């Protein structure tokens, strides 16, 4: 597998770019190129740096290079009855582990199992000066040094080029079932909130405007008993529904208008306008198709104590992520400078100015 170790080449590319002040566009399979701000830069493709470095199922830890295709990684885990509990969206065959971690996106299980950052144990990365750095490790508990591994999650490659990521993995549930309960939006929100405060094996819940779907995962007897408490009909499209939701392939998402991801407290009341929206994550992640002014959408999200991301479409040259409070913005700029003093790693991908 030595052929797949391109650490030196990646370091060299970064060093060269740093020396000449050339902006780099760091990427894997480009399946999430639509996400974040549109930027130009010299391509630094990390796909050749690939392969699972170590995987010990009984340690519940896998380490893989950033260019490893997600499908390859998930297949290897599946063979041992394990999985990535945060259900990363792929958005295409070419999706890589590095891209999934850099974008920091998690699937329908997120409110119940945790997010991608919750499962990151360590990273090896190259900072903006071309130095190879290793943070965290391959063990569950590690508080030596600042938690830079998790800081990399969702940083959109602006702090470092990921080389290798170690993740905690979990056994696949023995049994899974999806129930469908038709109801109105207000009832759907209160029902999802009520489930969240009870010891039920809920692993996903989504309301599409008509039907509340809930996925139960666990032992067969545990799922069956929860099924009786929850009621509803067994959904025939169970597994496919959650995959389509994760991949934004449901009919709801087949739309060219700007797609917003609104992250708010799960108890936030349903929007009363007539725009198409869909509730995921037990109500904590809301998808909205809207051409409305960004400021208005962000104002609503802020009022609810959350934030809004222009997830897909719309103006990719403006700010797509929610603006930061001034003090936070200062800390962000300084952190960016701390990792990438020349500002060459995906500059502008996260926020316009840096």
């Amino acid at each position: 597998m030595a052929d797949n170790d391109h650490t030196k080449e990646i370091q060299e590319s970064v060093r060269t770019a740093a020396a000449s002040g050339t902006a780099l566009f760091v990427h894997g399979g480009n399946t999430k190129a639509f996400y974040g701000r549109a930027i130009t830069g010299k391509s630094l493709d990390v796909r050749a740096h690939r392969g699972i470095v170590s995987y010990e199922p009984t340690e519940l830890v896998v380490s893989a290079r950033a260019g490893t295709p997600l499908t390859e990684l998930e297949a290897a885990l599946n063979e041992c009855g394990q999985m990535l509990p945060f259900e990363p969206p792929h958005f295409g065959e070419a999706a890589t582990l590095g891209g999934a971690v850099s974008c920091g996106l998690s699937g329908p299980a997120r409110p119940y199992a945790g997010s991608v950052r919750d499962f990151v144990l360590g990273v090896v990365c190259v900072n903006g000066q071309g130095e190879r750095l290793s943070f965290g490790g391959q063990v569950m508990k590690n508080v030596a040094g600042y938690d830079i591994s998790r800081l990399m999650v969702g940083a959109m490659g602006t702090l470092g080029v990921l080389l290798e990521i170690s993740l905690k993995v979990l056994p696949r549930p023995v049994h899974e079932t999806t129930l469908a309960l038709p109801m109105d939006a207000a009832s759907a929100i209160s029902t999802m909130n009520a489930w969240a405060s009870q010891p039920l094996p809920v692993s996903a819940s989504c309301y599409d405007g008509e039907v509340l779907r809930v996925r139960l995962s666990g032992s067969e007897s545990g799922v069956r008993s929860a099924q009786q408490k929850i009621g509803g009909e067994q959904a025939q499209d169970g597994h496919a529904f959650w995959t389509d939701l994760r991949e934004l392939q449901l009919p709801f998402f087949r739309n060219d208008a700007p797609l917003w991801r609104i992250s708010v407290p799960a108890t936030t009341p349903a929007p009363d306008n007539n725009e198409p929206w869909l509730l995921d994550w037990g109500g904590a992640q809301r998808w909205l198709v809207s051409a409305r002014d960004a400021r208005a959408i962000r104002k609503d999200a802020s009022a609810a104590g959350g934030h809004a991301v222009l997830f897909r479409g719309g103006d990719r040259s403006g700010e797509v992520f929610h603006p930061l409070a001034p003090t936070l913005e200062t800390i962000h700029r300084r952190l960016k400078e701390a990792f990438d003093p020349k500002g060459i790693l995906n500059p502008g991908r996260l926020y316009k100015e840096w």
Partner: protein
Amino acid sequence: MSDLASQTQPVKQADKQAVAAALREVLPPEAVLYDEEDVRPYECDGLSAYRKLPMIVVLPDTVAQVQHVMRVCNERKVPVVARGAGTGLSGGALPHPEGVLLSLAKFNRILEIDTANCIARVQPGVRNLAISQAVATNKLYYAPDPSSQIACSIGGNVAENAGGVHCLKYGLTVHNIQSLDVVTIDGELVKIGGNGLDSPGYDLLALMTGSEGMLGVIVEVTVKLLPQPEAVQLVLAAFDDIENAGNAVAQIIAAGIIPAGLEMMDNPAIRATEDFVHANYPVDAAGILLCEVDGTAEEVAEQIKRVEKVLGNCGATEIRKARDEQERLLFWSGRKAAFPAVGRISPDYYCIDGTIPRRSLAEVLAKIAVLSKEYGLRVPNVFHAGDGNLHPLILYDANHPGELERTEDLAGKILELCIAVGGTITGEHGVGVEKINQMCLQFDKAELTQFHAVKAAFDPQGLLNPGKAVPTLHRCAEFGAMHVHGGKLPHPDIPRF
């Protein structure tokens, strides 16, 4: 003994009276202490081997007062060390002799319990266990449960990213908090994280967690609450060979079971705790495993059967299922009281916090036993077996000249052993001053430099908890002059010995 002054940037000796006067402009006089008898109680945290008197102790009780303290210290370049309940085990709250010790003891209120969103908004001085107690009637709880949970405060838990016996399934502090209110060194109040499940920008919530008071002072924490599991069952298994016990842990996980708690104790630890709490442990066993499963009643019944089968297959000499809640708590009481129990059989003990890949357990324990003989110091072991976090407890007597130094030396050797098998020098207690030298072994120059750059992004003057958590390169150069890093000696071309 650590020479703290040598780790810190030179700090100009500030005029104590002038700083105190500036602090009293906003803080009431009784909240600013500087007479020796008043500041003496703050000279150490849970790691009492290290002691320093702070120049001044402040006890603010509003966020505005904390902001004032930070502004005064920032303007006058006075170091600030934040302190919660003072139960930390790595000297993270060890005072700075020329600095202000900022106690958050008065921030002890639970501000809001939001059962619909399963969160609680609390001040940093609230005790860990008090949160679970406050929400128990709602059938909710706060998951991380460090053994010191009766006394330790949530602010300190965040600063150290505290764990506990239930981390394997429910995660560490970083997995169980939603937002923080932090006062920066220049006195600004910032919200990190948000009211939803994520927030825009970098994951500063993760960065702040476990940052040991080096980046800001936490003045409010929003924690996530979980529904109390419907059913809990605990099995105790005895083994006559520690390797079998280690293998049983791997096999339980291989069977697809994630226990809520999975703890191991070796024979010396079993004996010490049994004498102390009379948990009815099998005192002749080489090791015992405590395996707790939680979930729905059906799930627990199903999984416990499988756990018992696996334990039997792995050579357990005895398997006991707790008959009732009382016995379950009794079985746990020994494990949770391991530290005080050891404190009873030895004048002093030194707790180590390495994490190792579980597969290396037998090897590491065997090597610790060899080291223990070599140094003539007893070392009982308690082990968060599920997540690989090992707590060897070195027994010593500080009154015997040289014994503390030998203990520290042995502790260093054990931490180096943890690094050598692919683990880490600290799983949940933090680096503080205690493990600062071993940081030089775990991280290289570029990595340490990156840590310092991160620190500078928050604290350009280096005033927050100086000398802790991340060693200076100079210190590492001195410590590491003859040390092996990554299997290579520094400057291998230089002839030695």
